[in-house]
Each structure stands twice: as C-alpha cells, then as structure tokens.
C-alpha cells in the first residue's frame, strides 16, 4: 500500500514542480500563465480526493480574486463575490440542467419497479436459438434497463446477481460473462435519455434534443457490435459459450394450451380458433381461450392501428409526410426482423412507433374535420413535418391518394404478419406474454420519452417529467410503489442531483476565473500554433480525454475540460454536436478501463469468491476494444450520428 501512495504523491509533486519550473519567472509572468498554473493545480487537488465541487469553487475564487486584483485592487473583492453569486445563480436557474433530477428520479423509480428479473428471463427465452444466447440476452437486458435507469452500479450489481450465475451454470467462460455484464451495464451512459448528454449539452451550449437524436444510433450501434462479438465468439469457440440445453429451453405451457396444442394445432391462431368453435374441449374454459386470442391478436391490431393512422396522416390535406418516411422505416425494420425468426420483436418495433405517433394523428384528424379553423394550431404540433416535406408534393386536395411507398409498406407489413402468425406457436405465445410484461413497457416508455423529445412534441424537461410519472405508474403497476420505495428514490435523487449541480456551480466559477486570467487564449494560441490538421486535432483531443478518463470521473472531465476544448472547435471546423457524440463514446471506455473501472468492482462485489478481479478486467478488454472501434467507425462515418439530427432539424 505504502508504495502506491508515495508513487502517487511523487507524481503530483512533480506536476506542481514542473508547472512552476516551466512557467516564466514571476516578473515576466502574465495572467495567462497563472491560468495554466491553476489548471495544473486543480488536477492535483482533485487527485488529493477532496470533493471536486468545492475544490473548483475555492480555487476559482482565489484565482478570480487574483485576476481582478491585477486590474483594480480596490474593487477585487466585490467583483469576485459578484462573480461567484452570479455563476451560482445561473446554475440554479439553468433550464437545461433542470431535467437532470427528473431523469435521475425516473431511473431510480424504474430500478425499484424490479422489472429486471422478468426482463432477463423473457429475453433469454426469446433468444434461445441465437448462439451465445445468455450473453446476448444479458447485453440486451442491460442495454434496455441501463437506458431506462442510467444507474451503472445498480444495473451491474443486479445483472451480476441474475445473469452471472445463469451463465456460469450454463458453462460460459468467466471472462465472457463478466465482460458482457460490465459492458452492457455501462451502455446507459451513452444511450439517451442519459444524464451525461445533458451535462455535455449544458456545458457546451449544444441543444440536448440534438444530442439525444445524435446519440441514439451510435448507442444502438455499440450495443449491436457487442452482440455481434458475442455471437461470433460463440460460433467460433462454443466452449466459451455453449448453446443452451434443450431442457433449459422448455417453456412450461398452461394446461389449456397443452390440451389445444395436442388436440388441434400447435400454432396459436388455428389452435385457438378451432378450440373456440369446436365443442371438443369441454375442459378448456372459454375465458382463457378468448383472453389468449386477444393477446395473440395484439401484434396484428398494433400493425393495423399504425397503418391506419399513417393512412390518415398521408392522405390528410396537411403537409405531414414526414411521418410516412419514419413509419416506412419502422415497417422495413419489422420486416427484416421476422425473417430472422425473431417473431415477437416485430411488435417490439411497431408498438412503440404507434405510441410515439398516436398523439399527433388524433390531433390532425381533428384539424381535418374543422378545416375552416386557422392553420396556426397545427403548426405547433407538426414541427417535425418540415423534415421530409420534399418527398411528396404538398397536398391541395382534401384527401390525396396514398403514395406508393405506403402501399409497399402495407404489403410488407402484411407479409411480415403472415409469417409471424405462421410460426406463432403456443410456446412462442408464452414468451410473447412474458415479453409483454417486461420488455414492452420499458421499451415503450423509453421510446415515448425519446420520441416526444426528438420529434419536438415536448421539451426534454417535460418529457423527463412525464418519464418520471411513467416510472411512478410502472412501479405502481408492478406493485412496488410504497412509501419506502418512494422515499428512497426521492432521497437518492436529491443526493445525485446535488452532486452534479454543485459540481456545476464549482466548475462555472472555476471556468470564469480561467477565462478571466486569459488561460483560454494562451491555450488557443498554443494549439493553433501547433498547426494541426482537423484530424490530428480530433485525435489529440480524444486521446487527451481518454487519458483523463483514467483518474477522473466523466462529470469532472466534462465540466472542467470541455470548456477548454469547445472554443477550439470552430478553428478546425468541427461541429460541437459531433464532438459531443465522440466524447460520449470515448467516456464510455473510461468505465471499462482497468484498473479504475467502477463496473468491475460492482460485479466483484456480488460474484463468487473464485471470480477474480483480473478475470473481470480481462473480460472487459475485448469490449473496450469494441468501443474504440466504435469511436473509429463514428469518426469515419459521421452520418451514423449526424443523420438523424440532420433529417429532423435542418
């Protein structure tokens, strides 16, 4: 132990010393040099372990006073006090940060609704045929749950309790199991609605809405890359992830289903219809049959509802074609999914769409009825419509014929549905019912929250509040909402928000002092003096952030160092939005980089004693490599992130 301490302290002493040595003599020292000194000192001070918010506040105050004193000693104290109070008040009344407590609250509530057990179970049954199914199910569960809650520690711990035993029992290698859990658990940092993007947006002055739209596909891409890696690994080395045994895959059928599938048909629709019509099965209650018929028909109803609303949207005499583009995409996705025999996910994709889109159609039909009404009202609702207005000519008739793409979409949906029902056996019905109770509510909620933000129906604050309300309802629906749960969530929310927002108070005082001293200009001229190409600058910036991710937390990196990088971006013609996406991906890797990765310690806390930290770290490394690859992909193909915000807001 002693050695590490001396090593660390020596490094810090060296940093301070070299800062003093490298700076010019006090007589020639300009304020800008003081700014750099301040930056070096603050890194050292943070490493000493004092609460960062107050380190920043204290140091910012001292240096702000020095800066003011060099200009006008008489006013220095008053100016410093004014600066501090102004900065603190601006954080208190910040209209971006306000969504942080709301999203955090939503996360705690959802975590306590205890969906994860059901989610994991239904996921792994639904994916039984995929190679490495348990690991894939783990990643998907983590991704969904972490996205909804955003609490890395809790997700990793819970999955360590649920998925790790399951994987080890099935003969998965410790490394792969640990890697899948830790990597999956950290996805919530990136996939919106995430707090990290709000913090970046508030610091860099980038719209959170655009960040959310931009981070969506990179997040999905990262999750997909993880899944691909696991699937390929399971194919190449079955010893690391053996396929599930047949007995594990058995889904117990309810009594009536056993009777029906034996006597009539194991496919749901003919089976149920036969049982309802025929009198052969007196033992089966009609109520069960009708209930299950209703559940079985849900996907078809959902598709019909969506296509119906789209038809109304498309043919309505208002320029609302944007929705056609969006939904055609949904239809295609659903189609390609069914071919993979992943039947239940069809409605996984289509139902949320319905949810996101239903409110506006109700509105438009109303508008269509009262056509004489001035067009001012709909304009508010149909902001996103601007997006693809070029696709179809603006309507002048009352009801215009639906475009060809709609009919293609309709036909492909119908084919998908037909295929879906052809393979829809009673076993799958059971899995579908389980998904209905775990996966769909969460997916629906996330997509509803995101959809309203991204399509401009609500501000992030409003969507976050609705999300919290949804969390309350979800917890209530799962019988988990009681005073204790509510109280715990409320207190935890207060502590987390106070942590993030006080850090903001400190850092805004600190960066004001840094700017006052002219440290920013010095860095600007220095970086510009290096004469970098944009690519070199980008790589340099990402490497610096990556390295900072080792000793510092992402909150600290964003609030302290982003204000230094952001002003440099225009010089190199880099979009701060794109930079933010890269930073978010980059900071993800910090969560998986040994030896400081918190995820590993959470997992270690609940794993059997023979799973060592080294095994967990070794398991994380391939996933970290995938993250670096994902950064590279995003850099090479910026469209992955920039396409959606571009389509929606330009």
């Amino acid at each position: 132990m002693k050695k590490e301490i001396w090593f660390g302290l020596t490094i810090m002493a060296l940093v301070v010393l070299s800062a003093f040595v490298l700076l010019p003599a006090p007589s020639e020292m300009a304020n800008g040099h003081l700014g750099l000194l301040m930056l070096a000192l603050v890194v050292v001070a943070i490493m000493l372990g004092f609460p960062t918010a107050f380190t920043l506040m204290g140091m910012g105050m001292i240096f702000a006073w020095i800066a003011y004193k060099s200009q006008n000693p008489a006013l220095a104290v008053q100016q410093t006090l004014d600066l501090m109070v102004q900065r603190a008040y601006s954080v208190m009344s910040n209209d971006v940060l306000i969504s942080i407590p709301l999203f955090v609250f939503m996360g705690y509530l959802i975590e306590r609704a205890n969906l994860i057990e059901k989610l994991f179970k239904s996921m792994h049954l639904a994916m039984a045929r995929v190679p490495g199914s348990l690991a894939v199910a783990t990643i998907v569960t983590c991704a969904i749950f972490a996205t909804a809650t955003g609490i890395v520690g809790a997700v990793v711990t819970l999955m360590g309790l649920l998925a790790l035993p399951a994987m080890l029992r099935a003969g998965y290698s410790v490394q792969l199991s640990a890697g899948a859990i830790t990597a999956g658990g950290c996805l919530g940092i990136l996939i919106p609605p995430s707090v990290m993007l709000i913090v970046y947006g508030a610091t860099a002055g980038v719209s959170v809405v655009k960040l959310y739209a931009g981070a969506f596909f990179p997040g999905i891409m990262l999750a997909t890359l993880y899944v691909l890696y696991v699937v390929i690994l399971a194919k190449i080395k079955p010893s690391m992830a053996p396929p599930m045994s047949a007995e594990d895959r058995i889904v117990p059928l309810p009594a009536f289903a056993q009777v029906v599938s034996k006597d009539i048909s194991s496919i749901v629709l003919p089976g149920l219809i036969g049982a309802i019509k025929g009198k052969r099965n007196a033992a089966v209650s009609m109520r069960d049959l009708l209930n299950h018929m209703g559940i079985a028909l849900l996907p078809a109803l959902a598709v019909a509802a969506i296509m119906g609303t789209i038809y109304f949207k498309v043919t309505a005499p208002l320029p609302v074609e944007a929705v056609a583009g969006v939904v055609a995409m949904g239809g295609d996705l659903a189609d390609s999914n069914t071919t993979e025999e992943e039947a239940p996910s069809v409605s996984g994709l289509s139902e949320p769409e319905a949810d996101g889109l239903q409110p506006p159609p109700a509105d438009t039909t109303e508008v269509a009825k009262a056509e004489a009404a001035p067009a001012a009202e709909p304009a508010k609702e149909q902001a996103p419509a601007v997006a693809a207005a070029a696709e179809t000519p603006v309507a002048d008739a009352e009801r215009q014929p639906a475009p060809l793409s709609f009919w293609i979409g309709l036909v492909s949906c119908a084919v998908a549905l037909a295929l879906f029902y052809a393979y829809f056996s009673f076993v799958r019905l059971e899995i579908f019912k389980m998904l209905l109770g775990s996966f769909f509510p969460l997916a629906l909620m996330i997509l509803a929250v995101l959809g309203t933000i991204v399509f401009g129906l609500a501000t992030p604050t409003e969507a976050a509040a609705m999300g919290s309300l949804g969390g309350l309802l979800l917890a209530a629906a799962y019988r988990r909402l009681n005073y204790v749960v509510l109280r715990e969530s409320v207190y935890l929310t207060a502590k987390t928000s106070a942590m993030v927002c006080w850090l903001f108070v400190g850092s805004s005082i600190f960066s004001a002092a840094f700017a006052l001293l002219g440290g920013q200009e010095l860095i600007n001229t220095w970086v510009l003096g290096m004469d970098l190409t944009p690519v070199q600058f980008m790589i340099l910036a990402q490497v610096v952030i990556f390295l900072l991710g080792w000793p510092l937390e992402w909150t600290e990196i964003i609030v302290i160092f982003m204000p230094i990088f952001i002003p440099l971006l225009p010089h190199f013609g880099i979009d701060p939005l794109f930079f933010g996406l890269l930073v978010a991906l980059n900071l993800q890797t910090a969560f998986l980089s040994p030896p400081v990765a918190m995820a590993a310690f959470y997992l270690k806390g609940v794993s059997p004693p023979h799973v060592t930290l080294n095994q967990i770290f070794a398991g994380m490394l391939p996933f970290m490599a995938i993250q670096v690859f994902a950064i590279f992909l995003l850099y090479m193909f910026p469209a992955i992130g920039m396409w959606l915000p571009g389509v929606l807001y330009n």
Partner: protein
Amino acid sequence: MQNLLLFIDKVSTWVGQFFSWLILLLTLMISWEVFSRYFLDNPHAWAFDVMSMMYGSLFMMAGAYTLSKNGHVRGDVLYGFFPPRLQAWFDLILYFLFFIPGVFALAYAGYGFAADSWAINEHSNITANGPPVYPFKTILPIAGFFLLAQGLVEIVRCIVCIKQGEWPKRGDDVDEVDVAKLKEMVNVKDEDIAKLDALLTAGKGTK
C-alpha cells in the same frame, strides 16, 4: 460540543430530505402543466419560473445533506489508497484552504444578492407579471449557511479521525447500490453464490 455537531448533522439531513420531496412535486407539476396545455388548452405563464425555482431549491438545499452523507464526487483514484489518517489530514487542510473560504464567500455574497432582490421587490421578467424572485434568491445564502455548518461538522470528523486513526461513522442513509437490498429484490441468497463457487472450482478441476 459533540451533541451540537450531531445536531447540525441531523438538521442538514432533515432539511435536505425535506427539500428532496420537491422532485415529486416537480414531476407532478410539470405533468399537470403538460396535460393542461395540450388537452385543456390552458398553459400557465408562471409554470416555467416555478419549475426552475423548484429545481434550484432542490439541489441547493440538498448540498449540505449530500456532504453529510459523503455524496459529493471525489477523485478517489489515489485517495482510496491513503490510510484514514492521511485522508483526514488532506481533507482537513483542503477544508480550510478551499471549502471554508469558498462557501463562506458564496453565502456572504448570496446574502447581499438576496437583500438587493428583496429591496426592489424583484419579480421574474421571463414572462409579464412573473412571480416574485426574492424568496428563490434567498435560498442561495440559506443553502450556503447550511453547507458551511455541515463543513464545520466535517472538519471535526477529520480531527476525530486523525486522533483515532479511523473515520467516525456516518448516519445511516439510503445507498445508490445497496447490495443486500438488491439481493433481496431479485431473491438471490448468499448460499446460492457460494454454491456457484463450488461449480466454478469443480469445472477447473476437470480441465
């Protein structure tokens, strides 16, 4: 003295927890506002101001509570390796160097800031006829005061730690990751984990 400090600790916690409930209020208020605007066609001009006031009060007043539960983020890469006495020494020095001056200045400046606002009977100018701002601005010195008081408690904690060689206990509170509770939630018992371990070692033996 001891009692006074414990009392301060309790008061910080109580105040912080009291203001924590604002998050529930905030959720319900915004949800109602959204409903009212879209479905009743009756938006309220004051909603925006009230929202930001609730959020501001929430996190400012929870600052001391968070400090008393050691919830403010620390760079603990190195700190974690320090023995408790060294941790306490560094904390003690930095409390005097950064915390006390910084928070005192904030509270003091906040007092003047709020007093000015009271003096001119300031109202929000985001909308016409905005709600009064002076109560909200008063939160700033009050939060600063509680934080300062809690800082004194923390300083005493450091001194106790330097004397005794270990950190005095903090009051119980909810943890973000409470392993015991999570285990209970998903019905996993310690025996199950132990059993798993046997499986793991057995697997190694055969290879």
